[in-house]
């Protein structure tokens, strides 16, 4: 597969591993946060940590849009799906996220019609094919996915579709990163920036991290070599005492983002004054809702949504995992009470959740490559 296989080449990985190890100052520990759930997934899926020396730790961040959805919103979605003649549509990742009374697929067993789709356009197609039903699309995702929801709403309006609406749970990445930076629990050395969010918002929004907080940022692609190269670029910045925003994923990410996408979002959506993030609490101006002009596509207005705030189960430590304070295996219920079959929290359910990634892929003693162990092989 072009633009994929070349960036999974193991040989080049060894070379990068040597470089990274060579840039480690003796006795110093490095903590790099990868914000995006997609990165967490790649890291574990390809066994990337085998290429890193012990002194470099990857900390998983809150960039998993499924993970940050509070239980109350899942309940709201199930409530919507239980309304008469409603077909709820959702990405597959949401199907097993637990609300207070089970997840979507449990609700289906009780009689709701919640269908998995791969695109908001599929949801629109279902609406067109079922004029007597009311089709709701559960929109989740960061700025990566918001443009697609926006374009679908614009298309629905242009085509005069009256039975389609959106239950909007889009969140924005910068407030989440800011919450991490301002958190007293963490001391991070740098950030691996979200690659696909950046195709929409560009690289400028991260400049405050480098100039204001003095931490280097490298926007990274999603193949394992992309991430490894980004780690190398971060280590080089740290070695050279720089803190800048760099774009490793330049083949896909334009520095100024995608103006058409931003315009579509701006046309159809606006920032909520505040929104609850699972584990991070209420964050102001961190999530999107439909604009008044598109109220006829806003499921929260078309239907009465309970909107009850549900506290996470006492045992759940998703919040700390999302902030990178705890590693998945450090959570008290990891692997025992909380497993992929019996998840307590979202981190264990979402394919991009740190706990799911670690449990499904990483639950192994590390087998580091020689370059990552023997520093003599490397030179800065």
């Amino acid at each position, binding site marked *: 597969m*072009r633009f994929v296989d070349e960036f999974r080449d193991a040989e080049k990985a060894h070379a990068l591993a040597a470089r990274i190890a060579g840039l480690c100052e003796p006795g110093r520990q490095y903590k790099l946060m990868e914000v995006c759930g997609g990165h967490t997934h790649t890291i574990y899926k390809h066994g990337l940590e085998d290429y890193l020396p012990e002194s470099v730790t990857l900390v998983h961040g809150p960039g998993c849009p499924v993970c940050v959805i509070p239980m109350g919103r899942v309940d709201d979605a199930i409530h919507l799906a239980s309304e008469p003649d409603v077909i709820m549509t959702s990405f597959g990742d949401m199907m097993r996220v637990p609300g207070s009374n089970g997840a979507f697929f449990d609700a289906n067993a009780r009689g709701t019609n919640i269908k998995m789709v791969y695109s908001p356009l599929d949801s629109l197609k279902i609406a067109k094919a079922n004029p007597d039903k009311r089709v709701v699309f559960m929109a989740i995702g960061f700025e990566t996915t918001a443009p697609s929801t926006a*374009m679908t709403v614009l298309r629905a309006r242009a085509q005069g579709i009256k039975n389609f609406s959106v239950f909007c749970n889009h969140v924005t990445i910068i407030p989440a990163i800011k919450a991490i930076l301002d958190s007293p629990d963490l001391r991070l050395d740098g950030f691996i920036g979200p690659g696909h969010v950046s195709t929409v918002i560009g690289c400028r929004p991260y400049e405050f991290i480098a100039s204001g907080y003095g931490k280097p940022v490298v926007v990274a692609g999603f193949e394992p070599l992309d991430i490894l190269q980004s780690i190398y670029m971060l280590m080089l910045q740290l070695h050279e005492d720089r803190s800048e925003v760099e774009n490793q994923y330049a083949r896909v990410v334009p520095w100024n983002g995608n103006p058409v996408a931003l315009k*579509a979002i701006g046309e159809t959506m606006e920032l909520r004054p505040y929104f609850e993030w699972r584990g991070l609490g209420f964050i102001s101006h961190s999530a999107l809702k439909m604009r008044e002009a598109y109220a006829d596509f806003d499921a929260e207005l078309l239907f009465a949504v309970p909107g009850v705030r549900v506290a996470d189960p006492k045992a759940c430590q998703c919040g700390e995992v999302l902030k990178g304070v705890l590693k998945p295996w450090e959570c008290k219920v990891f692997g025992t009470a909380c497993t992929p079959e019996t998840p307590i929290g979202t981190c264990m359910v979402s394919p991009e959740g740190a706990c799911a990634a670690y449990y499904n892929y990483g639950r192994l003693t590390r087998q580091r490559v020689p370059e990552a162990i023997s520093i003599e092989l490397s030179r800065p």
Partner: protein
Amino acid sequence: MCLGIPGEVIEFLPEQPDLARVDVSGVRRVINVGLLSDEPPEPGEWVLIHVGFALSKIDEAEAAAALEFLEGIGQAYEDELAALRDSQIE
């Protein structure tokens, strides 16, 4: 969720300027290219596909540059290893 796949644009659908057929390893899919309306892709160009939409064009020059950099690192590493090996032959 962040799942984005590179695909090659094959053709536009007649009478649907927003829709294009793309190819991923021989698999064909119709996607919406409305987000690239500022600079619509041409057949033969590559785009990043995410939930049924093209999010961005893949800049082949940048991709080549990225690969060149990686080749360079790979080669330099090979050279270093060779030098290390040679220096041990005493």
